[in-house]
């Protein structure tokens, strides 16, 4: 299970809950990378990930008070907050697309115009790009499980802890994600030899 082994981080969490602004900023700096990378993976879009990470930290000082150590590790809580914020951004972007009558099935994958984002520049490898696009076509719920399992290397139990769902639900969501990804990336797997 996810645990908080970093004594200093735990102290910062406690004094941040008590309203210490310096501690809040230190936690912010410590976990900024984690939040942003998770957001990029969940949203597949650099600008949207920035927006989600900004949302997380703008509300961080207020929300940190709702964290209760007895209910799990701080990092698990932070992942929950990040995933919830990303879900909010995901819904907003879909609503925006709907309001602008842009109903063409867009993957949500770096749909911004103009110069390529840092993420687009990094995804020059076609194989990686295909995977990212396939991930973005997954329902958000399945996407979160895949990111926690295959990027953060969380066990099923840890993933269940973050998502606050039974381990069985993690297994079934992962299986559903696998099925969809295999279908989506069918051409890749059909040409690969089976051992």
């Amino acid at each position, binding site marked *: 299970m996810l645990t*908080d082994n970093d*004594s200093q981080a*735990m*102290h*910062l969490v*406690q*004094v941040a*809950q*008590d309203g*210490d*602004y*310096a501690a809040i900023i230190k936690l*912010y*700096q410590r976990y*900024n990378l984690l939040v942003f*990378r998770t957001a*990029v*993976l969940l949203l597949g879009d*650099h*600008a949207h990930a*920035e*927006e989600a*990470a*900004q949302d997380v*930290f703008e509300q961080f*000082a*207020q929300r940190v*008070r*709702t964290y*209760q*150590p*007895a*209910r799990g590790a701080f990092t698990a809580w932070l992942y929950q907050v990040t995933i919830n914020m990303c879900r909010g951004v995901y819904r907003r972007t879909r*609503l925006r697309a709907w*309001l602008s009558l842009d109903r063409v099935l867009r993957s949500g994958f770096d749909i911004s115009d103009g110069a390529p984002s*840092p*993420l687009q520049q*990094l*995804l020059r490898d076609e*194989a*990686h790009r295909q*995977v*990212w696009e396939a*991930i973005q076509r997954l329902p958000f719920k399945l996407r979160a499980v895949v*990111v926690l*399992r*295959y*990027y953060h290397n969380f*066990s*099923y139990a840890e993933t269940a802890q973050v998502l606050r769902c039974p381990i069985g639900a993690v*297994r*079934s969501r992962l*299986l559903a994600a*696998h099925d969809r*990804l*295999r279908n989506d*990336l069918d051409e*890749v797997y059909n040409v690969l030899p*089976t*051992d």
Partner: protein
Amino acid sequence: MSYQRIDDDIVLAYVDNQLDAVQRAEINAQLAAIPELHAEVATVQRLQCRLRAAFEVVDYLPVPHRRPTRTARRDRTRRLWLAGMIGVVVSMLIVATFITAQSITTPMLATQSFSTLVPLPPPSAKQTRPFTVTKPLPTGQLVFATLRDPAADGGCGRFGIYLLTSNTTPTRHLANGCNPVLSPNNQLVAYVRAGQLWVVDTAGDEERSVSDDGIVDGRIFPAWSADSRWIAFKMGRGGQTDIYRVNIDSGQLVRLTNSAAVAEDWTAFTPVWSPDGRQLAMIGSTNPWEPEENWDVYVMQGDGSELTRLTEHPAREGPIAWSPDGTRLLFWSDRDGESTNVYLMQTDGSQMMQVTHGVYDSRASWSPDGTQITLASIEDGQIYIANIERHTIKPITTGLPHSYNPIWSDDGQYIFFGAFADNGHLAWIYRVRPDGQQLAPLITTTNGLQWTQR
């Protein structure tokens, strides 16, 4: 050997190394004998390898240290505005339908104003205190907040504000909210709830909102002036966030800063009154939530005039407390790098002196005679006393897991501080004599503790 179908989720769990030893042994035995199963496992492994390889790209992304662009924010605002308009239209239709159907008139909700006195509901007989009183308070009163209902989600409304006293009724539930601060005359408690600044008397009889129509920043503690007549706080109003002060007697609300006039995106927060009530120290920063953005210590007159920047360092720093005689200002700074230390300067920014060398809490409290300060170390979790005149610092506690936010009592006889267990599941308010004697917990809770001071 016949092929016994193995569920797909078992295959996935096998590849994910999430099966126990017995289950793995069973699959291993079948893998050698069943080519179809072997192929299935290999396919899952290939897919996972591709996922992991594709995800690694994110490790090379630069982490943004800028806010979303103004264009993006404007775009987002437009979207929120549009969604809000749709919501308003739908709500109006629903309300109109309801009124027509019920043939009743819905009374208008009265806006909370300063003069509105809201009697508190009587305490529920079922409500149990979310903490245990271990020892009575030696003297005076303390105020703290703790979660009333740990299972519920939400903001400040989940917290109960309690008064710890030395009389026969050791604790009293005053109100619900967070960031409670006791007035210097021990008669009122200011706190934040639902984006409003509230005041309740220490009898817990009446609470009232004093922040008019603004949105009070729930992250910032309100600050009482020494004469208990004014509260300074951060509030958003008319599209701009500033430091305001409100007169508790008349309800007069005065804006003290004009952020837009200082710089674009500049904001001020954590106001601290001087002992004579004539000046306020605070943090000023442009885009304070930028990880690389610096914060500086500013002072201004109590009417908002003569805004002066006292520190000009690219680190983060903020005021802690004025010395009792009002001649010096204690502040914290990250100018050493990752660690936070406590510094002292004259109130004009001169004669800066580093008080601590280590990693300290960014709160500290002066002894009433102004010769010493008490503060907490994040490194060893103990409470320390620094003698300002002798330039010495020593711990007064040992063996505590994590201590924080020590506060000297008005009579100088005790230091009160918060502490929590290694796993964070248990929190205390302690008291100790300045010489380290008579260490004892006053309150114990498992529900999270917001321990504050004036």
